[in-house]
């Protein structure tokens, strides 16, 4: 029995990890997954594998499963307003169906 949910994906700079994790928690999401990542965007190739001793080139990707679109959008707004003027970053929302998460509550209740 799949539960409808939204998946919010945020790709941004690694040094924002803690701050974004705090925002996600504040907005009421119960969890998130974060992976180190890299790629190319408006700020050129980042996390390119070239030597980088200061960690300022490293990127991370957050995935947050939320019960509804509002929460996802709320998180994305806060992050965009606080950081995306000055830091590399993109946020997007996808539809998701949660299959086996016994603690996850969808719009229809737990």
């Amino acid at each position, binding site marked *: 029995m799949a539960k409808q949910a939204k998946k919010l994906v945020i790709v941004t*700079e690694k*040094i924002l990890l803690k701050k974004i994790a705090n925002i996600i928690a504040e907005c009421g999401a119960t969890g998130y997954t974060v992976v180190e990542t890299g790629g190319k965007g*408006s*700020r*050129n190739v980042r996390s390119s*594998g*070239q*030597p*980088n*001793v*200061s*960690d*300022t080139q490293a990127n991370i990707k957050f995935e947050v499963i939320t019960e509804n679109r509002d929460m996802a959008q709320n998180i994305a*707004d806060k992050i*965009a*307003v*606080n*950081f*995306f*003027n*000055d*830091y590399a970053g993109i946020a997007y929302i996808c539809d998701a169906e949660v299959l086996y998460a016994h603690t996850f509550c969808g719009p229809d209740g737990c």
Partner: protein
Amino acid sequence: MDFLSDFFTKFGAQLQSPTLGFLIGGIVIAAFGSQLQIPDAIYKFIVFMLLIKVGLSGGIAIRNSNLTEMLLPALFAVVMGILIVFIGRYTLAKMPNVKTVDAIATAGLFGAVSGSTLAAGITVLEAQGIEYEAWAGALYPFMDIPALVTAIVVASIHTSKKRDKYFSEEEYLSKQPVAAGEYPSGQEYPTTRQEYLSQQRGTANKVEIWPIVQESLQGSALSALLLGLALGILTRPESVFESFYEPLFRGLLSILMLVMGMEAWSRIGELRKVGQWYAIYAFFAPLLHGFIAFGLGMIAHYVTNFSAGGVALLAIIAASSSDISGPPTLRAGIPSANPSAYIGASTAVGTPVAIALGIPLYIGLAQALMGG
């Protein structure tokens, strides 16, 4: 003339040191597109090892020495950290096509201290058998923290002034020329529903100093150094120091230098985008900062008998620019500054100049002037 010939002989000898050799080697193989990779974990560990070694020897020295001797050099280190930011603020920031926040961040990074340059300087001093106060390594935080704090405060004052202007006269939006990168300077970023929200941003323009200090203390370089210091003062680490940290020090430093060389090459491309003023600043600033610190060190030499090696080391840390712990602090503290500008300037030009020219220059000068 003796002075000059003596100086140039020593300067020439320094150029053959392994430290510099590995640095140049790193630049050369990166330039040839070598696939050589040193894993991240390795050089993070090396930085830890080097700074804990410097900390331990400093701690042991502090335990056995008279602390009042440290006061004047420590004061001079603080003065240098602050002064370097203002020098950058009133030189680099005045250049055409240089954004003021970028210039302040660059100056802050040059004021901050590089653990690898410090370690390289210590190795050269030891290799030459020059006496120096082992606690001189402990001057690191006295220069590092004031520089980062000053840079972040000065930049915040600058941006909040600009913001006030923006709210009083709308025409501020006639944007500054973009000095760097291929991305826009930022103002028009949230084009969607965030635009109205972004107006709320910038109400808080008070700069809190303590979080900046805390962040630099928690950075990997300073925590290792301070831990070493504390262990050196409070425990008796001589056995592990002599059997483990001391013998590994030089070998590990050579690997770190190789990585720094490779990184220097990979940042040159970014530096090219931000323009020639950064490169010119990054070339001359380390030498100028070192000379000022050398002068202050000479005062300490005459007043409190600060050794020639110590004076050279003070000049070396003033000439160095942070590579590892400074950039993340500045990135978080001055978000609007372009990291390509300050990291490019520091890593691609500043550090190689400080190591290749600065270290032999100040040590040679100290020997020539004080016969260390």
